[in-house]
């Protein structure tokens, strides 16, 4: 899946090299329409799970605490390294708000700046790759709930199998709800940093 995603971006880049710059504005409209459709479909997908509310009740206070802590931590980490590398605060914040959901965060950033969009894409691809490698280690050495943190928004889909294999069923449910909340936060936080 990750390979196909990267391939789609590379294919687009190669075609883009041959296209005249006058078409740049058209891509804006395409992105907005496509994103609207995608988010509507994501909503339908989430609503299909009828156990969503009873699953969530079982996780208690951690339901809110864990995603908030992950969001705050990601933002702090991104702002820290971003300041060191010379990025403005709002750009670092937007990168950190991606929470590992590389496809959505980079697409939202695309109308703002292609350069930042590539950085968001690569950063969040890296985050997912590192998460896959680190989750088993963190689960073993630090704790089950901490093992959800590197996954960010992917805790409900791509990295969920890894989390559930390395922790217990309670943590897997918490992982799903955490991913769900963080996924909802991505389309809110990323534009909040960039567009006023």
């Amino acid at each position, binding site marked *: 899946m990750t390979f196909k995603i990267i391939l789609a971006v590379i294919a687009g880049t190669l075609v883009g090299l041959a296209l005249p710059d006058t*078409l740049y504005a058209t891509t804006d409209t395409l992105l907005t329409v496509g994103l609207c459709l995608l988010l509507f479909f994501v909503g339908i997908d989430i609503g299909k799970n009828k156990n*969503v509310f009873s699953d969530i009740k079982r996780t208690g206070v951690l339901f809110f*605490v864990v995603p908030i802590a992950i969001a705050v931590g990601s933002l702090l980490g991104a702002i820290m390294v971003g300041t060191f590398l010379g990025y403005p605060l709002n750009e670092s914040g937007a990168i950190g708000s991606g929470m590992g959901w590389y496809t959505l965060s980079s697409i939202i950033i695309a109308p703002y700046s*292609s350069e930042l969009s590539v950085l968001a894409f690569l950063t969040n691809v890296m985050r997912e790759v590192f998460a896959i490698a680190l989750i088993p280690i963190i689960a073993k050495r*630090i704790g089950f709930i901490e093992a959800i943190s590197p996954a960010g928004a992917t805790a409900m889909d791509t990295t969920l199998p890894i989390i559930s294999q390395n922790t217990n069923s309670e943590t897997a449910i918490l992982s799903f709800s955490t991913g769900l909340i963080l996924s909802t936060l991505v389309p809110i936080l990323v534009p909040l940093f960039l567009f006023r």
Partner: protein
Amino acid sequence: MSSILLYLALLIVGGFLSYKGWIHQGLSNKIDKLQLACLFVLLFVMGLRIGMDDRVLDAFAQIGLHAILFGIFTIIGSVLTVHLMLKVFNRKAVK
């Protein structure tokens, strides 16, 4: 700002309709494929923009290095914050 509200509204409307079972079964069954199709079109368009933008191509190696650093630090930040929060809420560590 208006785009945030639009995205969120569509997410909620989609979730509500589907939770209530008001989405046509045929559409609901194909939702994974529709999401994938949308996603790939969007990724391709994103690629187009990267290809049209000379600044990005010039800075690719630097962007790659920064991406690794951002990736590592967002992970460290979130693991530390969750760890501290659990201490605050006095949850014993489960291993």
